[in-house]
C-alpha cells in the first residue's frame, strides 16, 4: 500500500534523514557569498555559491558576529551543519563559524582564465590600439541614463561642439552584460569615438565589465573606445580591450575632447602668424612695387589693408586680455607693424611722388617692357597721364 504523506510529514522525514547524517555535521564549505541579509532579529542570511550551484545559509545571532562584515562577492569558508527549515522545506547550512577564504574564489579564477584566453587571442594587443580622434564630431556614450557617470561626462564635453549620442545600457545586475554589448553594437557606424563608463560600485556591481560578451563587443567597435569603470583602482577586462583606459568617467571625457581654452589660443596664434606673415610679405615688396603687378587692383589692396588693420586691432586687444604678460613684446611688435602697414598701401606710395607706369601689356617694371614710340599710361596720386616712349636704356647701372 502506497503511503500518502502530508507535506509536513514529508518535510519532517527529510529533515530527520538529513540532520541524522553525521557526514553532514561539522563540515566546512567553500564558496562565494551573495544575497546577504542582516535581519533585524540579528540573524544573518546569505547564499553560498560556486559556479554551478548555490546553497542557503544562516548564521544565527546566538553564534555571535563574525570578525568581518559579510558582503556579496566575498569568498569564504563556512563551518556548520546541514539543516532543513521545515516550514519551507529548505535545505540550508547552519553556520557556526565563518572566515574569509584567502585562496582565489571561483570568480577570480574565471576572471584570470578569461583574461588569459582573450590575451592569447590578441584582444589586448597594443598594436591594435587606435589613436583617439583629435576633434571628434560624434561622441557615443554607453552608460546608464540615470547614473552620475553620464552627468560627469556631459559636464566636460558639453561645451565642445559635437553631436553626443547616448546609447543607454543597464550597467549592473542581471542582464547588464547583454545590455552593454547591445548598446555598444548600436553605435556601429555612428560615432567617431565611444566612451563606455559607469561610476564606482562593489566588485559585484562592476563585474559585468569582466564578461566575455562585453569584451568582444568593445573589440568589435568601429570607433576607438575609452573605458572608464568604477574608480582608479578598479581595472576590468573591458579596460584591457578598450583602446584607452581612463581612471574615471570624468577623465574619459577629458581625453575624448580637446581643451577648448587651448584651442581658442591656437586660433588666436594662427591669426597673429597670418597677419604677421602677410605684413612681412608686404614689407618685402614695398621696395619693388611688385604688389601692383598682375591683377591686384589698388582698391582690393587698400580694402585688404584696412581689413588687416582692423584684424590687428581686434587680435591685439584679445591678446592683451588672454595672455597679457607673455605677449607684451608681441603686442609692441604688432603696434610697430601697424604703423608700417599704413605706409605700404599704394596710395601712400603714390603720395610720396611715385607713379605706376603701365602699357597695354601690364605693368612696366623694366625698360625692356616698352618699345620706343609706344603709348604708356602713368598713374599718379591724383589722375593719370598718357605718354609716349621716346627711348629706353636697358642699362643695369642706371640708378636714382
Amino acid at each position: 500500500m502506497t503511503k500518502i504523506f502530508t507535506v509536513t510529514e514529508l518535510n519532517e522525514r527529510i529533515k530527520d534523514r538529513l540532520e541524522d547524517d553525521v557526514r553532514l555535521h561539522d563540515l566546512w564549505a567553500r564558496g562565494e557569498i551573495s544575497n546577504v541579509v542582516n535581519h533585524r532579529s540579528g540573524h544573518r542570511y546569505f547564499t553560498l555559491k560556486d559556479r554551478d550551484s548555490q546553497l542557503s545559509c544562516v548564521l544565527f545571532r546566538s553564534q555571535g558576529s563574525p570578525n568581518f562584515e559579510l558582503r556579496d562577492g566575498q569568498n569564504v569558508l563556512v563551518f556548520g551543519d546541514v539543516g532543513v527549515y521545515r516550514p519551507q522545506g529548505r535545505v540550508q547550512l547552519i553556520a557556526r563559524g565563518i572566515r574569509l577564504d584567502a585562496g582565489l574564489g571561483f570568480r577570480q579564477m574565471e576572471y584570470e582564465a578569461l583574461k588569459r584566453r582573450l590575451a592569447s587571442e590578441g584582444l589586448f594587443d597594443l598594436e591594435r590600439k587606435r589613436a583617439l580622434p583629435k576633434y571628434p564630431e560624434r561622441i557615443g556614450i554607453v552608460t546608464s541614463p540615470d547614473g552620475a557617470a553620464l552627468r560627469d561626462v556631459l559636464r566636460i564635453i558639453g561645451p565642445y561642439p559635437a553631436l553626443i549620442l547616448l546609447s543607454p545600457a543597464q550597467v549592473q545586475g542581471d542582464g547588464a552584460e547583454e545590455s552593454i554589448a547591445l548598446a555598444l553594437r548600436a553605435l556601429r557606424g555612428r560615432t567617431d569615438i565611444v566612451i563606455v563608463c559607469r561610476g564606482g560600485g562593489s566588485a559585484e556591481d562592476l563585474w559585468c565589465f569582466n564578461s566575455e560578451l562585453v569584451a568582444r563587443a568593445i573589440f568589435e567597435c568601429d570607433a576607438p573606445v575609452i573605458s572608464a569603470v568604477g574608480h582608479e583602482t578598479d581595472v576590468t577586462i573591458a579596460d584591457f580591450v578598450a583602446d584607452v583606459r581612463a581612471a574615471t568617467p570624468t577623465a574619459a571625457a577629458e581625453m575624448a575632447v580637446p581643451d577648448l581654452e587651448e584651442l581658442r589660443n591656437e586660433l588666436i596664434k594662427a591669426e597673429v602668424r597670418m597677419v604677421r606673415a602677410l605684413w612681412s610679405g608686404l614689407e618685402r615688396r614695398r621696395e619693388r612695387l611688385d604688389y601692383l603687378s598682375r591683377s591686384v587692383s589698388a582698391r582690393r589692396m587698400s580694402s585688404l589693408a584696412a581689413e588687416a588693420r582692423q584684424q590687428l586691432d581686434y587680435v591685439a586687444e584679445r591678446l592683451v586680455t588672454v595672455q597679457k604678460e607673455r605677449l607684451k613684446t608681441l603686442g609692441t611688435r604688432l603696434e610697430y607693424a601697424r604703423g608700417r602697414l599704413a605706409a605700404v598701401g599704394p596710395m601712400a606710395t603714390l603720395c610720396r611722388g611715385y607713379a605706376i607706369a603701365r602699357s597695354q601689356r601690364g605693368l612696366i617694371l623694366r625698360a625692356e617692357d616698352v618699345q620706343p614710340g609706344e603709348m604708356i599710361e602713368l598713374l599718379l596720386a591724383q589722375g593719370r597721364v598718357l605718354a609716349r616712349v621716346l627711348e629706353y636704356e636697358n642699362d643695369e647701372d642706371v640708378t636714382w
Partner: protein
Amino acid sequence: MVSGKEMGLEEALDNLERIVAELEEGKLGLEENLDLFERGMSLVRLCNARLESAEQRIESLTGELPSDLS
C-alpha cells in the same frame, strides 16, 4: 574641398595650419598671399563660430533622454 558649412573642425584646423605655414614660407606672390590670408581668416572665423555655437546636442538611441538632460 567641402564647403564651409560642412567642413569639420578638424579639417578646418588642418587647412588653417597649412595656410599659415605657406604664408610664413613667403614664397608666393602677393595675390596668392592675399587669397591665402582671406581663406585663413575665414577659417579662423569658422572655427570660432563653431566653438561658440556649442549648445549641447544630445540624442539618445532609444529616443528618450532623462528629463534633466533634454
